[in-house]
């Protein structure tokens, strides 16, 4: 496994498997590391008003260049107890419903929404099944298309399948340089397709999960560079680069009328993957 202290290489020379390892590096900045560097006066809100508060999903209110914004993001932990508390970044239905609360509030108070994606996937154990993890993720996607405010999404680590898209319907979607976005973990893909987990490297390539591939396929709007040595080596530098991209995107989106925003959001996802 490549160690992460090495100098940041240009995107093109980094292989997909290496990117997967970097995206999972526990020293990478997580959602709250970014939130506290990007937004001023952030107030975290808790609970889905139905059954609980999910530590794997962070939502709240903050300011960006003095403009109020709603923030939603998946949160991982570093120590053993933090990891448990954050459920390894795997949000449960109550997490997605807390996120939905924040989205609806963003709509009601006309604040743009920023979502930070970093999850290996949504939680799918018995409790999550029993509280409707599928329904929660489906509802969030539908709801995001109806939001009359700009939405900017950034993959800051792992873009793990349905867990990611449950907060990932953005007018602009970006990926940081050392992150991946995939419908399945390469290890599971290799095991299912080739009955051989040691083929994970090959699966990572085949899945086209890197930011460069997502860009070429027209599925994201841009790649956010990371400081030399990667985001994990320089939190402030990484946050600055993310912040600049979000500010720029919101500047583009702010003038658009709500109906125009929703129309182009629908059209954007409508066109994705269409064969030439």
């Amino acid at each position, binding site marked *: 496994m490549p160690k992460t202290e090495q100098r940041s290489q240009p995107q093109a020379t980094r292989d997909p498997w290496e990117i997967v390892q970097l995206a999972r590096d526990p020293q990478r900045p997580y959602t709250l590391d970014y939130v506290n560097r990007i937004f001023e006066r952030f107030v975290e809100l808790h609970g889905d008003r139905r059954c609980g508060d999910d530590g794997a999903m962070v939502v709240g209110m903050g300011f960006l260049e003095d403009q109020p914004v709603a923030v939603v993001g998946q949160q991982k932990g570093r120590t053993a107890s933090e990891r448990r508390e954050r459920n390894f970044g795997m949000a449960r239905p109550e997490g997605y419903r807390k996120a939905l609360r924040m989205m609806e509030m963003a709509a009601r108070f006309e604040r743009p929404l920023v979502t930070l994606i970093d999850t290996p996937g949504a939680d799918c154990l018995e409790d999550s099944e029993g509280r409707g993890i599928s329904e929660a993720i489906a509802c969030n996607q539908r709801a995001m298309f109806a939001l009359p405010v700009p939405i900017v999404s950034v993959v800051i680590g792992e873009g793990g399948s349905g867990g990611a898209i449950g907060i990932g319907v953005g007018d602009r979607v970006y990926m940081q340089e050392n992150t991946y976005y995939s419908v399945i973990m390469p290890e599971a893909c290799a095991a299912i397709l080739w009955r051989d987990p040691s083929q994970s490297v090959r699966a990572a390539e085949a899945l*086209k999960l890197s930011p460069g591939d997502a860009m070429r396929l027209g599925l994201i709007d841009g790649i956010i560079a990371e400081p030399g040595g990667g985001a994990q080596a320089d939190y402030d530098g990484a946050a600055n680069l993310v912040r600049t991209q979000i500010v720029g995107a919101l500047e583009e989106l702010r003038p658009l009328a709500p109906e125009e925003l929703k129309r182009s959001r629908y059209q954007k996802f409508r066109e994705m993957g269409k064969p030439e």
Partner: protein
Amino acid sequence: MAQGDVTLGSLEDIPADLWEECSACHQLLYSREFEAALWVCSKCGYHKRLTVEQRLATVADEGSVQELFADLPLADPLRFPEYHEKLEQARQKTGMDEAVWTGLVSIGGHRVGMGIMDLAFIGGSMGWVVGEKVTLLIERCVEERRGVVMFCASGGARMQESLVALMQMPKTCAAVGQMNQARLPYITVLTDPTYGGVTASFAFLGDVILAEKGAAMGFAGPRVIQITKMKIAPEVQTAEFQYEHGMIDLLVGREQVRDTLVDLLEWLVPHPVDRQSSGSGVSVG
């Protein structure tokens, strides 16, 4: 959540013989009687996985079936290893263009859009074509002010299309949102089995959600659970569990599906009731 490659329950081509074996309890069943029972095993109650043609026979008014959107190109956006061949083989094996059939049918006189997924085509998984057909169907029905009934059966998002497959989830959710805004009925019927990217998108967004008794379903597919060694009891991934937990409106036996749909459509279809006499469409098969 992707389960694309898994041929769930291997639908082998069974010769249209006199006898058919129940794949659950291995009881030999007299084909005529089995068909008359809508392919529900008389011994153990297992609801056999149906082909599109069989499904249509259980719900559609006679002569009312008109297929739509069967002419989309094969999609292999990632040029995934061995995938194109797999698609060609699936087409040959099943005679279907992709893992979902879409069209218009009448149910008790109600003309509605219908989607029917088929497990036999790469595990009923959702890639671009499946997402596109579902979306086209819904958009067409919004335009023509019709309801939609979706029969879901899927291993999940198709992993050979990775992120393109994942993006079919928001696309179909957005389309359902258009139906909701147009105040048109959208009913889903979850059949054995429904997993992953389909459950977490258009399957669980029904105004009314039905599930056939005994159907397997869940967010994570069985192969993913097996590989990641997650501890999920088999009884969790069932229609019955989802029903007990309030995620499904009705658990139905197959013999009740059609009548239930008629009742629901009577209630849901907007005025003036959009009725067409049956017999106007083209028959399938």
